[in-house]
């Protein structure tokens, strides 16, 4: 029986809470309501109010309290109801959690879970893919699973990790993607990319929901005789540069794809590293496909125009294949 992405995350958290009595959850509406997306459904019933803490609407206090609890030996998993609201807890993440190990050797092993991404007509404040706010901050680990299998394995790794992890769950994937999960205990390492699809001619380097967009486009390009390799980064910080470069050296062409808007997005970083370290292997410019530099619009025609999709990617792939 395959598990959905949301079930996989829930199962991963549940297993970690059963394994380690120091793991507890805090966030808005995560208890009796089970979370806005039901990720924590059933947790209150199983673990009780001590370990499943409904908080006031106070993102800064949620993250700050998680940090303080982590100093005491606990393993807090904080939920930010929508990644868009993470800005309200920004200082605690980027100035407090990210820097305390470097400054005074005080690890803050917290997980901040944040449902991100568009495609659900959520409008400007329920749709953002804002990982770049955090990839620019040393000290944080930034994880964005694309599949149910990875979501479970990565949330377990995140909870066990000794550094603060920002865990972006794509809300459009919660019930749309499924996997047959491995039997029994498994984890997926943070900092390791996955070759999602092997190919020969062009590498598409991407993550989160865009992995599935890339898969659709790759299927279409196959019929045109272009073999596309898809690298699912899974983690942006630390970045698995080795897997990216190995793929580009093999295919000699690369497109970086992400849902976040273009300017200052993580795609620029990947493109720069490929250019710096694999320039001699390239047979064309490194392209980027990303959302335009606007807020995420609400109505279907505008949002569809905003989001990268298979059509837009096919267009880029054709252009690069001809180059």
């Amino acid at each position, binding site marked *: 029986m395959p598990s959905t992405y949301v079930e996989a995350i829930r199962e991963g958290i549940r297993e970690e809470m059963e394994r380690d009595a120091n793991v*507890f959850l805090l966030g808005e509406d995560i208890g009796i309501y089970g979370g806005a997306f039901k990720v924590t459904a059933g947790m209150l019933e199983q673990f009780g109010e*001590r370990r499943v*803490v409904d*908080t*006031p609407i*106070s993102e*800064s*206090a*949620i*993250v*700050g*309290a*998680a*940090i*303080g*609890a*982590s*100093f*005491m*030996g*606990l393993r*807090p998993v904080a939920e930010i109801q929508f990644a868009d609201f993470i800005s309200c807890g920004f*200082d*605690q993440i980027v*100035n*407090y959690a990210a*820097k*305390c*190990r*470097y*400054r*005074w*050797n*005080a*690890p803050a092993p917290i997980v901040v879970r944040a449902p991100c991404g568009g495609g659900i007509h959520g409008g400007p404040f329920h749709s953002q893919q804002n990982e770049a706010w955090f990839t620019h901050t*040393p*000290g944080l*680990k930034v994880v964005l699973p694309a599949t149910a299998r990875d979501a479970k394995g990565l949330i377990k790794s995140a909870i066990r*990790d*000794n*550094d603060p992890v920002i865990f972006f769950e794509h809300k459009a994937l919660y019930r749309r993607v499924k996997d047959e999960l491995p039997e029994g205990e498994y984890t997926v390492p943070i900092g390791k990319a996955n070759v999602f699809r092997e190919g020969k001619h062009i590498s598409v380097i991407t993550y989160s929901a865009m992995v599935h967009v890339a898969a659709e486009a790759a299927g279409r390009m196959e019929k045109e005789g272009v073999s596309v390799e898809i690298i699912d980064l899974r983690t942006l910080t*630390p970045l698995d540069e080795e897997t990216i470069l190995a793929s580009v050296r093999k295919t000699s062409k690369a497109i970086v794809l992400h849902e976040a808007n273009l300017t200052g997005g993580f795609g620029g970083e990947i493109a720069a590293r490929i250019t710096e370290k694999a320039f001699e292997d390239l047979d064309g410019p490194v392209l980027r496909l990303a959302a335009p530099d606007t807020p995420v619009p609400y109505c279907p025609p505008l949002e569809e125009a905003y989001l990268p999709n298979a059509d837009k990617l096919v267009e880029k792939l054709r252009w690069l294949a001809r180059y």
Partner: protein
Amino acid sequence: MGQQVTVIAGNTMPAVKLQELNPEQVAESHERADLARRSLYYMALMREVEERIERRLYRQGKVVGGVYVGRGQEAIPVGSGLAARPSDMLFPSHRDLALYFIRGVAPRQVFAQYMGRAGGLTRGRDGNMHMGDLDRKLVAIISAMAASIPVAAGAAMAIKYQGRDDVAWVWFGDGATSRGDWHEGINLATVRKAPLVLICNNNQYAYSTPLSKQMACRNVADRAPGYGMPSVIVDGNDVLAVHDAAVKAAAHARAGLGPYLIECKTFRMTGHSAHDPADYVPKHLFEEWSELCPIRRMEKRILDQGWGSSAEIEEIHARIRRETDEAIEWAQNSPYPDASELLDGVYGS
């Protein structure tokens, strides 16, 4: 310190002869005298270390960054810090140096910290009061005021989670109470009935901004009822008054009754930092508040109550000067960290 013939029960009662007290009262009086002398030591040590940092090392260019001192406010960290248990978690603000000494941090580590040396608590990674040591249950402040409040609330929640009767203590200034973090953190802690003691040093100024432009209520303590939390206002320049309030607040928190706020009225006898001449502060305020110096008041009380002699007080100061001289010498000989350490410790793995 020798035992005194004449002892005092309580802060304000007139001196009585030892033979007039029952054994319990004698023990209590001895305890009081001991607390008074320890308070004087830590307040005077904080004053001396900060004087050297601000008025010598900083002016000599040996402190590479900013200096923020708690001159005139020493009674607050000392009175409350001596009321905390060693197993309690402390979240000092940037004017609470004495808490570090009470927890066993050596003055030489503090000098090295200010000078950016490898012997400082952050090995040159951060400066001034931005230092902590988890083994000593001291948590480093960050520059954004009140950011410690939610973190301390989380530590208090963890204490409760772990079923212990320790307390998390957090210190902050009046200016910090304007930040959202202050309100969010306290609200969460009160809702959770977490064992948190909140200590405000209301020194009347946030950098150059007077309290009247910081908040419209009269006292910081006035904010407490909005959170369903008890509060008390104390003379922040009276170390024993601060101590007694802190003991009461901690007992409240340990009993599972939730957070407790202590507002200590005091005055910042300096600029915001060493580079700030504080021209915006009316001179008469400095003059009036200098009459209320917590160190001189404690010395006077020790003499008045017979808790110690002038010679003993002078010996405390002499010992501090010696310790401080040696500490500066050590810190100046501590090397800078090697540039090869730059990339270390951003991540644990």
